[in-house]
């Protein structure tokens, strides 16, 4: 796709696709049964190859029956059995993943029950794919259950597919949770059905909703779910409804208007949202747009509908499931000329919004943003691939520089050549290329930080391999520059104080990549690039230790230096023995080789004057 604004609006088409499958109607059927027959529990059923598990919407959260308030807990700390291990990985600078404490507790206690374990086991054995579903609070538990299954399946590399379908469920966790899910490429495994006015999924945006009102609301819903007639028994007053409606709407407005800049909400949408109305449905996945849409749609509701809509999912699901049979007829007389605008018009109609309504304009804008946000990452990735091809020659030039240094008569290798370079054109050019490459990769990292790239970008082999190669080739030059300009004297050594963030990120990509080749095949020749890109930084530190050891007199400090030097020697020897260093390391005048010579000289001196260092020579430290 060449342009950022594609010519089609597809949120409604995706909803049509979902509605044409049996997944929605089967899920709802089971949720409904579960509401009436297994309150506070769940039920499982097998339909063809697909296993379904439905959590009842009737659940008791904590003691207060109160799902609101700010009781979020960090997932990592409450997850004693590491059920959600995949979500524990964090990007630095990010808030920890937080989830609703009460709901997490509910799930954990369910998870530990034998009946749950047995039914899950049976389902896993018989099914090719599993749908986890739930209405109301049950849906949020279903979300937790899905997160657990996805983590578990990932850890055992299971091919089983999992899909979570919730109906009118409150939010589960914070923005970090939502981001972590996207990073794992699980965003497509969650489909939250939210009816136009239902207040329940929007409830947690209003932190201070009064306890009593909520209590009555839940009671009313639970009674109605269990048996529609009983709903009358709840003491739910019109004033309470109005108060809650007002509160939620008002908080939603603040959050929706803050947009992307400040995530003011504790809770954050996760996965895709299927908004349905009497007229149809649309499906949106961009979190900011989801919040905006929730706000805009609630604006068209009233205190009565916002409570009743929570109980009407059966009607909505049936309606959208039968839509496929009929040609849609347009209520609106004038259909826009452009294909994009008419797609938007169809979406609006599916939401039951007339073009004259005041929300029509902002809803359109919201769809537009969602669309753009959806397309951008892939476009950016494609553009990056093109600019990568353009900067490749710079990298080739550095390779060329390395080869010519490694072969030159001064036997120094490219690290030392670059470190000790004069003002020649060659060195300056390489330095320039180094800067160009650095700015390219810094830009990649920046885009990743800003969510401007596909969420699985750092799992794509092309990028993992290229970044690794870049790191191995160029980081030694960065280290050389660092010590050449004496930065280590101002800031401290490179490893602790000078290493650019990009290299640490590339380290992680490389560690987390999927390894398919057995790595134990031994090298027959020296590697073309030293496999530890920080090797030279370690050499620099070892040099300093060696210098210090001569002047140091404090035995405690001396012991420390000895230990360090020995550790480095062992490490370096292992690299060399495994041929994981490139030839430049072993050249006659390389810093490393000079260090080795000096070190062995010192050791032989040491032997002569061994009485001076009895502790160390007789101890284990010195061989």
């Amino acid at each position, binding site marked *: *796709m*060449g342009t950022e604004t*594609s010519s*089609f*609006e*597809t949120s409604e*088409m*995706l909803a*049509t*696709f*979902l509605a*044409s*499958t*049996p*997944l929605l109607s089967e899920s709802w059927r089971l949720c409904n049964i579960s509401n009436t027959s297994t309150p506070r529990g769940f039920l499982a059923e097998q339909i*063809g190859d*697909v296993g379904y598990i439905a959590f009842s919407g009737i659940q008791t959260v904590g003691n207060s029956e109160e799902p609101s308030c700010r009781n979020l807990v960090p997932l990592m700390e409450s997850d004693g059995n590491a059920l959600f291990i995949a979500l524990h990985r964090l990007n630095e600078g990010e808030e920890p993943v937080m989830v609703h404490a009460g709901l997490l507790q509910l799930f954990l206690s369910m998870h530990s029950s034998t009946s749950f374990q047995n039914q899950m086991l049976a389902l896993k054995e018989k099914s090719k*794919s599993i*749908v986890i579903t739930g209405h109301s609070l049950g849906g949020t538990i279903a979300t937790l259950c899905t997160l657990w299954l996805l983590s578990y399946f990932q850890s055992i590399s299971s091919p089983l*597919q999992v*899909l979570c379908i919730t109906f009118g469920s409150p939010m589960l966790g914070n923005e970090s949770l939502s981001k972590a899910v996207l990073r794992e490429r699980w965003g*497509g495994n*969650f*489909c939250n059905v939210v009816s136009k006015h239902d207040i329940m999924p929007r409830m947690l945006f209003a932190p201070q909703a009064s306890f009593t009102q909520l209590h009555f609301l839940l009671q009313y819903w639970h009674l109605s779910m269990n048996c529609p007639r009983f709903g009358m028994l709840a003491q739910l007053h019109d004033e309470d409804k109005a108060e809650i409606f007002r509160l939620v709407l008002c908080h939603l407005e603040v959050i929706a208007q803050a947009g992307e800049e400040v995530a003011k909400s504790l809770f954050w949408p996760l*996965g*895709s949202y299927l908004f349905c109305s009497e007229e149809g449905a649309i*499906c949106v*996945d961009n979190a900011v747009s989801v919040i905006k849409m929730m706000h805009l749609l609630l604006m068209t509701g009233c205190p009565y509908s916002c409570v009743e809509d929570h109980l009407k999912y059966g009607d909505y699901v049936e309606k959208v499931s039968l839509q*496929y*049979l*009929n*040609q*849609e*007829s*347009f209520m609106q007389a004038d*259909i826009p*000329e452009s*294909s994009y605008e*008419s*797609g938007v018009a*169809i979406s609006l109609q599916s939401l039951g919004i007339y073009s004259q309504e005041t929300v029509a304009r902002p809803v359109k804008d919201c769809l537009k943003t969602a669309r753009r946000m*959806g*397309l951008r*990452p*892939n476009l950016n990735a494609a553009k990056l*691939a*093109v600019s990568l*091809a353009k900067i*490749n*020659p710079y990298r*080739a*030039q550095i*390779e*060329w520089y390395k080869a010519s240094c490694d072969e030159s008569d001064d036997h120094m290798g490219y690290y030392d050549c670059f470190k000790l370079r004069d003002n020649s054109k060659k060195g300056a050019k390489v330095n320039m290329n180094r800067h160009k490459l650095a700015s390219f990769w810094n830009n990649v990292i920046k885009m990743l930080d800003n969510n401007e790239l596909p969420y699985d970008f750092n799992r794509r082999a092309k990028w993992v391999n290229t970044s690794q190669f870049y790191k191995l080739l160029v980081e030694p030059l960065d280290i050389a520059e660092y010590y050449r300009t004496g930065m280590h004297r101002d800031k401290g050594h490179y490893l602790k104080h000078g290493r650019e963030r990009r290299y640490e990120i590339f380290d992680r990509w490389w560690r987390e990549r999927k390894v398919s*080749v057995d790595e134990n095949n031994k*090298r*027959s020749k020296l*590697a*073309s*690039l030293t496999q530890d890109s920080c090797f030279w930084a370690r050499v620099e530190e070892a040099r300093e230790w060696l210098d210090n050891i001569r002047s140091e007199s404090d035995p405690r400090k001396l012991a420390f230096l000895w230990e360090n030097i020995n550790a480095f020697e062992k490490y370096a020897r292992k690299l060399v023995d495994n041929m994981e260093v490139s030839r430049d390391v072993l050249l006659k005048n390389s810093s490393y080789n000079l260090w080795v010579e000096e070190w062995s000289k010192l050791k032989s001196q040491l032997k002569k004057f061994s009485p001076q260092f009895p502790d160390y020579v007789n101890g284990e430290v010195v061989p």
Partner: protein
Amino acid sequence: MASLNLGENIEIDTELIKKAYSLAVKAHSKSSEKAYNVEESRRSSDPVIFSFSGCWSENGWYDGEPFGVTEINLPLLFPSLRSIGVNENALVNKAFLQRFVDKILGNSDFDREVQKAVKKNKQILFIGHSSGGSIANLATIWFLEKYIKPEYNYKISPSSPLCVTFGCPLTGNHIFSHALRRENWSRYFIHFVMRYDIVPRILLAPISSIKLEFQKVLQFLNAKSVNLAHASIDNFDASNFYMKVMKNASSVASHAACNLMGNTNLLLETVSNFIPLSPYKPFGTYVFCTGNGKLVILRNPDAVLQLLFFSSQLCREEECTDIAQRSLQQHFGYDNELQDCFQMLNEVHLEPLEQLPLSSDTTSSDIATINSALNDLGLSTRARLCLCAAGELEKRKIGNKESIDLKKPDIEKAMKYLEEDYQLNCRHRDLGCYDAFKLQETSKDFDANVKRLELAGIWDEIIEMLKRYELPDAFEGLRDWVLLGTRYRRLVEPLDIANYYRHLKNEDTGAYMIRGRPKRYRFTQRWREHAERMPAESSGESCFWAKVEELRIKISSQGFEPIKEEVLLLEAHVQNWINLGELSGDVLLEKSTFKKWWEDLPREHKLTSCIKDLKVRKAVTEKKQILFTGHSIGGSIANLATIWFLEKYLRSDSPDNYKISPSSPLCVTFGCPLTGNHIFSHALRRENWARYFIHFVMRYDIIPRILLAPVSSILLEFQRVLQFLNENP
């Protein structure tokens, strides 16, 4: 005589279509023994018509869950039915394929009768109604693979076949459709579909979803095929069947539409894993009969798929039972409908798709005809948007092709540098490009590396597009790109291999051929193999160096004996490639890795090796003069060898010429018979080549004169003379 214009220079006589339909329906009722019929009229201009009968059993449609498809893995029968670069075979309905292979090809009469028609230079029509149409499709493809050589023109030669089907079920998947478009064959297929006819839509539903009703539907259709009047089906079954097929069709269509429109939601992918989505995709030209005398023609496969779904949607819920009945009855209603249509001959081409009117009450006059046709098919705005999206996608593919065509000069420029400057530079160093590049000793090598990277960037982009099917289907069959790809591969892949082994990437990741070979070379190799109808994996000349490197490593660790077979194979290849000019002669230079490696092989092996005499190329590359010589007939052979050499190395437009300017050859013969006629002589003088030939002739030597006598006049003695000559060498 009226004829129906189908676009792309194809017109068919309407009488012929009507006749085809009646023959196609008649085929059902003929004895079940023979699965096809031939009809040949006495008039020589009329085509020979092969008609195929349908099948009315569930197994004859769905052989296996959920959609009864199988991978076509018949490289001899259907070598083209696959996606070339990504190397994936097409899927086809298993039962239809089985039926075609067993009942039609298994019948030796069929092939014979086809051949007979071809010899008479008659056009062949393959026709079928219902599943007989699918058999006709396969028969046509078989015919195309066998008789029509790939040509790059757009005219139909007189003997091109045509395939005409009526209410034909879908037959193959998206690769099937892609392959037919790539070969430019899809224009030979014309499918007539009634607006509500359910049969072309059935395979959009998995068998599990329609199991209950399908049996009854087949019974009904079978009864109807025998006796049109006396067949009926329960309203309840008909409605259920219609609704279930439509529900599945809706899934397929909306899923496809999401992709056409570029939806990026990951949910789309997840959900597709939960439900069986039909893999079938239309191909060829579709002619939809609206039911009121209009014919709507389109050929974009994505658009046809959408239209199959949308055109049989209901206007009002109440008409469900009625439409459900019609969806079955119409399967046998083509004759009346076509009769009406051909009287008016009111055909509408849905083109360009991306400019279709989105609103049903468009009043603009220039698109009024199209709009009313769309209304006749009951197409809502949503449906029209889907058709537009299909058109936009095709347009985008063409745009992509244009944008990479614009990069051709860049490719040519970089390749020219490598072909000329760099090769010349290497030659001065007595090195082949491979070895020079692997050593990376001069700045020229660095420049070459930059060119290599530039080219890789461009080609990788093309390959990415192909993997995502973002280029026009025809792309992998385009001659200029196949040629450019082959040239690129032969020129640059050795450099990639050199780079790979120079950096010892084989130790990090494994052998080049297994782990390291970039897709840009795998794809381009398959292009050539397909274009020239070569066996798979047989055009590996560009990986020569990788094979050498791997053999070197193997020999150094295992010794010669265990890999002798591999060495022999490589040598045979080398001989062949060098003779064909597919591999540069510089591999034989003294300093080349290959030569050095080969020289180290055991002496006994070298003495019998097939490449020990591979000298001509070598002589050329070493700029030595070559002398061709021969006595008696040997002299004539020497003459021909010399001419071959001159054509190959000295003609100014020879591809080898600019690389090396070899010294002129010399041909010296003794008592050589005459070799060619006056034009032969004239041509050699014109090229100024005659001066290279020197013939020694003894005053009375008869041999140079023999060919002046006709063989009949010397028949008796000639035998004995030859005997004498042979005995006294």
